[in-house]
């Protein structure tokens, strides 16, 4: 699964945009440490693609506009866009995003990670697997899979 020819040998690489907090209005200042989409994006933009020497940000797999936050209900919704609709790495990418957020966010947050609607041929299956916490827990007890995830989320 992780060797041999690349599925998408020449992915489009995007310029990494300057990150600014310009259009983000300050949220309720009385609430405890509210998060915004930019902060969540900062957590996942440096995740490495499993097969290319680029980050999820550089491949436009992760985008700030695909992150939604409901601080009141402590829920975070992250979409990601695989570079090709048959990408077999999608589950691994989603798992890496999930693990990175699990380790970076306070425990009170509920996180949904899903592929951007219409961006993957097996959208429902990928989403169902990624949001089944028992499968995620079992996958993360698998040492070889965990190592692959660690490689993805380790900053270069």
């Amino acid at each position, binding site marked *: 699964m992780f060797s041999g020819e690349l599925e998408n040998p020449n992915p489009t690489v995007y310029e990494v945009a300057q990150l600014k907090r310009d259009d983000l209005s300050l949220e309720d200042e009385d609430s405890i440490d509210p998060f915004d989409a930019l902060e969540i994006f900062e957590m996942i933009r440096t995740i490495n693609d499993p097969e290319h020497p680029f980050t999820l940000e550089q491949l436009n797999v992760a985008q700030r506009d695909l992150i939604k936050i409901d601080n009141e209900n402590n829920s975070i919704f992250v979409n990601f866009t695989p570079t090709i609709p048959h990408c077999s790495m999608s589950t691994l990418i989603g798992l890496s995003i999930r693990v990175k957020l699990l380790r970076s966010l306070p425990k009170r947050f509920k996180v949904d990670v899903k592929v951007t609607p219409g961006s993957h041929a097996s959208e429902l299956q990928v989403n169902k697997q990624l949001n089944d916490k*028992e*499968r995620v827990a079992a996958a993360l*007890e698998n040492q070889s899979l965990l190592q692959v995830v660690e490689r993805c989320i380790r900053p270069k």
Partner: protein
Amino acid sequence: NMSLSLISSLEGHEDRVWHCSWSPDGKHLATCGADRSVRIWGLESENNWVCVGSIDSAHQRTVRQVAWSPDSRYIATASFDATVLIWERTSSGFENVATLEGHDNEVKSVAWSRSGLLATCGRDKSVWVWEADSDDVDTEYQCLAVLTEHTQDVKMVRWHPQQDVLASCSYDDSIKLWVDQDDEWYCVGTLTSHTSTVWGIAFNSDGTMLASCSDDLSVKIWRPTAISAQGQPLWTNVCTLSGYHTRTIYSVDWSPSADVLATGGADDTIRIFAITPADRTISAGDEGKQVSGELVLSVPHAHASDINAVAWNPKQDNLLASVSDDGLVKIWSYKP
């Protein structure tokens, strides 16, 4: 003045607690989780629940579920390490007396029937039925059947409270019922109505109703509404409770003394539903079989994270246990 009040919040597990199970005599609660341990909780004095035993490093990986034998003498543990272990309660603790091997990978559930049969299920999409074969010295467990009709991993197995009827639920969104006829186990019903993973199932105390809970955010009640040509009850969905839980519902359990359900899930909330009417007869025809359910109580923030299991004490009326990703085991008193 209905209420669910907290009696005890029990610390001890070092990670997510996945499951809890009361001993049939109602005296002990067993819990298990990602810290690979099993803990046993008992009453020290009035309303004072304490840890009275534990099995540390019971398995190589997460202990997903724990079940008691009908005589409260043994517990069975199902683990992601692909094994099921049987432990005997001795004066000095718990002793591993048998190992059930056969599943390809994660075992997700184990259940003991009233007659002493064991059922297990897991990620390999199969349901196994086991029988204890004892002589004076040893007990060995023989596999009676490997049932492979689910198309995805099987999340939970539960036995009917009186008969050797087994129910299983799955990531394939279905529930299946299994019986033994002439030493052959086969599927007598596939219950489809849920639109996502069915995480939990529970029979009520007399076995006339089955409740299920799902990632589709609904709880469903199933009853036998007809008899098949082979003489088997045909179960159909007679009630759907939706619009309450806002995230995946992981657990459902019937009160032993009333048609009352407790549910828990990823919205950190425990809910209590009253189910009516309670017409117990099984006969052909749909008339009078419709059931209605009403939310009677909702406890938001019952835990600080996902609630993975809720279970009513089988003997002490209105005592409910819950376990969570927050690592806590809680005991509640329900006043109807």
